[in-house]
């Protein structure tokens, strides 16, 4: 009888063991690098300063993100914002020396005069790229959101396909202090969110309902500040079944944009996801010496592999 009890206990433990393992399949990180690599508005720094900035940022990425990409089974996706150009992005990724990390897309957004801006968004990953591109926000009748989004679709067989978007939504810059300017900024972010949702819908039609989607970037809004109480940007994503990586965390535990001058601590950087089984880890890495934004990283678990479609030859 006693032996039987032991046996039953052993069987139960063996059955529960797989539940204890928190397996992560995809590690994602989003970081606004703040006018990388010069850290100056519309001006290049000297070669020496820019090289030092590239090196320091790469070391930071290596220290924070590389451990998440610790095995061949965990793929890595980086969502980067405020990069000057492709050249500096390539230099940054090369300096990280993370195995298999490659640049998949970097935007080429221009200002109203047709001159390239120095706040591009990009995606880098260790995954197999299917398609990528960057799209400037479309203007509505009254406002034109600045910049746009970069997207990439990855083949993550046998688990499926992943679509990723790197975003940098309109800031809260308001030099006049006019409340209408606040509302205009909100409207620009809401317009941008509608365009992202339209693109995700288009990609879902193309790749199927099982398409996993990750949005990462600087959303410049949150649910804590009274100024944004009417804003539907984040809510529109929740309505499209996206989950927020910060759900359940108190505001003080999710500061991605530390206080500076008259601006208080804020959560502006997010990773939203849908189609994944669960989030197995979330991290905020302070990057005070390098940027005004912290790096946000999460680990996601994919759904089980989808079976191969039946082959015509064996039918």
């Amino acid at each position, binding site marked *: 009888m006693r032996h039987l009890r032991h046996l039953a206990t052993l069987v139960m433990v063996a059955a529960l063991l797989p539940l204890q393992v928190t397996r992560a399949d995809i590690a994602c990180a989003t970081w606004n690098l703040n006018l990388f690599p010069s850290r100056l508005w*519309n*001006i290049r720094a000297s070669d020496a300063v820019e090289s030092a900035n590239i090196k320091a940022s790469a070391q930071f990425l290596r220290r924070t993100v590389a451990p998440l990409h610790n095995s061949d089974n965990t793929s890595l996706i980086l969502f980067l914002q405020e990069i000057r150009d*492709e050249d500096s992005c390539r230099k940054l990724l090369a300096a990280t020396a993370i195995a298999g990390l490659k640049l998949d897309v970097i935007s080429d957004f221009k200002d109203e005069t047709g001159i390239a801006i120095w706040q591009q968004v990009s995606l880098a990953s260790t995954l197999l790229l299917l398609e990528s591109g960057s799209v400037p926000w479309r203007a509505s009748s009254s406002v034109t959101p600045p910049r746009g989004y970069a997207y990439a679709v990855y083949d993550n067989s046998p688990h499926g396909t992943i679509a990723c978007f790197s975003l940098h939504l309109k800031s809260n810059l308001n030099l006049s202090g006019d409340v209408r300017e606040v509302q205009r900024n909100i409207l620009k972010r809401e317009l941008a969110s509608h365009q992202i949702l339209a693109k995700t819908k288009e990609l879902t039609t193309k790749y199927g309902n099982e398409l996993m989607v990750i949005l990462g970037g600087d959303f410049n809004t949150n649910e804590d500040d009274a100024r944004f109480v009417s804003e539907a940007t984040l809510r529109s994503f929740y309505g499209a079944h996206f989950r927020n990586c910060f759900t359940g965390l108190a505001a003080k535990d999710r500061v991605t944009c530390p206080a500076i001058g008259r601006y208080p601590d804020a959560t502006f950087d997010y990773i939203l996801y849908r189609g994944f089984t669960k989030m197995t880890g979330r991290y905020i890495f302070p990057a005070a010496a390098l940027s005004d934004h912290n790096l946000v990283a999460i680990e996601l678990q994919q759904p089980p592999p989808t079976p191969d479609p039946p*082959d015509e030859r064996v039918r």
Partner: protein
Amino acid sequence: MKLKYIAAICITLLLMPAAIANSNQEQASTVVRLLQEQVEKLAAENELLRKENQALRRQIGAATKDNATPSANLKAPSTDKTAKENDAAIEYWLSGNGKRHNSRCRYFKIGQGRPCGKTDGTPCKICGG
């Protein structure tokens, strides 16, 4: 005597369907056996193909990890040395609106304009000209 014949015919008639059924059953079981063999063969073939498919996918994945695949919209790095040297020689740029920009400025060598001296035009407010 007649009765014997009739009895023999009756017995034959009675046994005939059983014999036919037996032969039918044998045929059916042979067909089932053949079909089962075919199914097993196809299942084995299917398994083999599935493994081949997985191996090929893994190979593609490994090849991508080893060789960074540039996106279609990414440019190849420029190797034109002379053009780079000529570019480096230009220090100031006078844009169409008469503003002078130095080589660190976002508006340097952008749009309509021409190279200029360090005192030409109005200095740009961002870079100082």
